[in-house]
């Protein structure tokens, strides 16, 4: 060949390399750096280095252990976990249902799942407000139907935030699941039943292990954004004590308090937590895989 393949590859790679090196890797490194500096409103003070930011994540001003931020992190993880699980429980049967339809139905149904995805995320979440707030739709229906006497106060509760998260991220779970289930050879289910396996055994030992890649992909695509999200908890939770998430806190630090170092420190901890969660998840998922078929 006239040109060495290596040169061709380099040419193709260069723009991506520059884009990523300059605007992704370096900024992340800067975040790491900033997390060790002292607060200076609206800018970075590169002259003062400190570990204070990390320390203050677990202590209060007096220097005693303060679980405030810890709780926020845990709550975010918990919300993310719940959201992932619920999305899985609801999304898997849905994906299975769609995958079993005929070709025309499948395309149409997937399109239908996608359409809400194409409405603006904010707008969808806002629509939930319309339904659930005190003078919202649900309450007026219940009042008019004489099912309740007083309007329910559902806004700004953890439950609502959770609902909003599931509502917002369900398509991210359904699509990878569908992609995986669609490749599944359904005659395997018949084979299992022919051999005497009941429904649950068949699902557990045949369907689930072979669609595990979809489950893993969907779970990651839901869990990670939810851990760091703040729009939903902002709109539906208004950052009340029961609904404050890590994302909100970081946003506050950056855009309101202008405490960039603290915000950076939190971000790094967040990323570490996310990476840890992924590793644990993969361990668990792989362990399942080894036990099951193939």
């Amino acid at each position, binding site marked *: 060949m006239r040109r060495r393949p*290596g040169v061709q590859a380099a040419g*193709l*790679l260069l*723009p*991506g390399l520059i*884009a990523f090196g300059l*605007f992704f890797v370096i*900024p*992340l490194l*800067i*975040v790491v750096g900033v997390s060790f500096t002292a607060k200076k409103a609206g*800018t970075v003070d590169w002259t003062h280095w400190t570990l204070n930011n990390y320390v203050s994540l677990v202590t209060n001003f007096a220097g005693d252990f303060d679980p405030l931020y810890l709780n926020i992190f845990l709550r975010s993880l918990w919300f993310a976990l719940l959201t992932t699980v619920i999305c899985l429980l*609801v999304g898997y*049967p849905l994906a299975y249902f769609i995958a079993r339809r005929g070709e025309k139905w499948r395309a149409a149904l997937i399109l*239908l799942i996608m*359409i*809400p995805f*194409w*409405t*603006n*995320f*904010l*707008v*969808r979440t*806002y*629509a*939930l*407000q*319309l*339904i659930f707030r005190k*003078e919202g739709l649900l309450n*007026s229906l219940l009042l008019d139907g004489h099912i309740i006497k007083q309007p329910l106060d559902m806004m700004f509760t953890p439950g609502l935030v959770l609902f909003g998260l599931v509502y917002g991220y369900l398509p991210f779970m359904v699509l990878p699941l569908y992609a995986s289930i669609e490749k599944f050879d359904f*005659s*395997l289910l018949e*084979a*299992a*039943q022919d*051999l*005497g*396996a*009941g429904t*649950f055994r068949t699902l557990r*030992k*045949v369907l689930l292990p072979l669609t595990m890649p979809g489950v893993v992909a969907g779970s990651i695509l839901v869990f*990670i*954004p939810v851990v*760091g999200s*703040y*729009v939903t908890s*902002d709109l539906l939770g208004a950052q009340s004590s029961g609904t404050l998430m890590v*994302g909100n806190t*970081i*946003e506050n630090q*950056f855009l309101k308090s202008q405490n*960039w170092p603290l915000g*950076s420190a939190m*971000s790094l901890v*967040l990323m570490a937590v*996310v990476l840890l969660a992924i590793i644990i998840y993969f361990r668990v998922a792989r362990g399942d895989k080894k036990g099951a*078929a193939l």
Partner: protein
Amino acid sequence: MNAAIVAKEQVAGHAQAGSGAQAISRPPARLALPAWLGNLLLKSNALVVFLVLYLPVVILIVFSFNAARSGVNWTGFSLDWYNKLLHDGNIGSAAIKTLIVAGFATAISTIIGTMTALALERHKFVGKVVFEGVMYLPIIIPEIVMGLSLLLFFRAVGVDLSLVTVIIAHVVFCIPFVAVIVRARLADFDRRLEEAAMDLGADELATFRKVTLPLLMPAIIGGAVMAFTLSIDDVIVTQFTAGVGSTTLPLYIYSQVRVGITPVINALSTIMLVASIGLVLTSLFLQRDPAGKKVK
């Protein structure tokens, strides 16, 4: 199929354990959902999900035509809010800015994403694995971290925030999506078509132009649509990288929704929804495989 054999062995193994040495009779009662019940459960689950998914959207659309300003009482059909929408200067300029950002971001990220996909799928090179990992990170890193990292970067470099910084940010998180989509199509690509072209006398460039690119186009378009969708919808990263006067539509909506809601937002959302659907249907049409096969 090997999987079928293994599955059979597995299931048979457990079934055997239950039935002992009986050769002819079935193992004792295994719990099996009758088919009709299973189907019913699946159907009802699907139905409920679709209802829940669409209800807020439908309400949104319906109330954009409600004459009343707030509250949930239907006071009459009205196009007032659409009227107000069209005359709202803020929304208009925000929409233009959104389109500008999305346009540039889509174009740039599609080109870079396609080139990167080609490089990753077809070449080996030093540090490939590392590069791949870094490339896919934006998909899994929390958006908020990406946003603030760029904010810090621009500050550190002394660049003012503006639409340009927003475009750069969008390009960075769009590239991996484009690359994944194009790469998936590349993986399935029949290399022998390229060999046939070269066998017939087309050199590498001509082969790429006449054979590879046309057949790759559906995936490239798909990637572009994905990038566009992500860009016009983005809030978090945009919030961190937009300067004063670079308010995009999502940012505008976010500020409005936090403060006070008028049905103008409903009207805006309805239009955006219709536009999105129109865009996607157009792209599906454009994504028709030039070979004539249906797109999945």
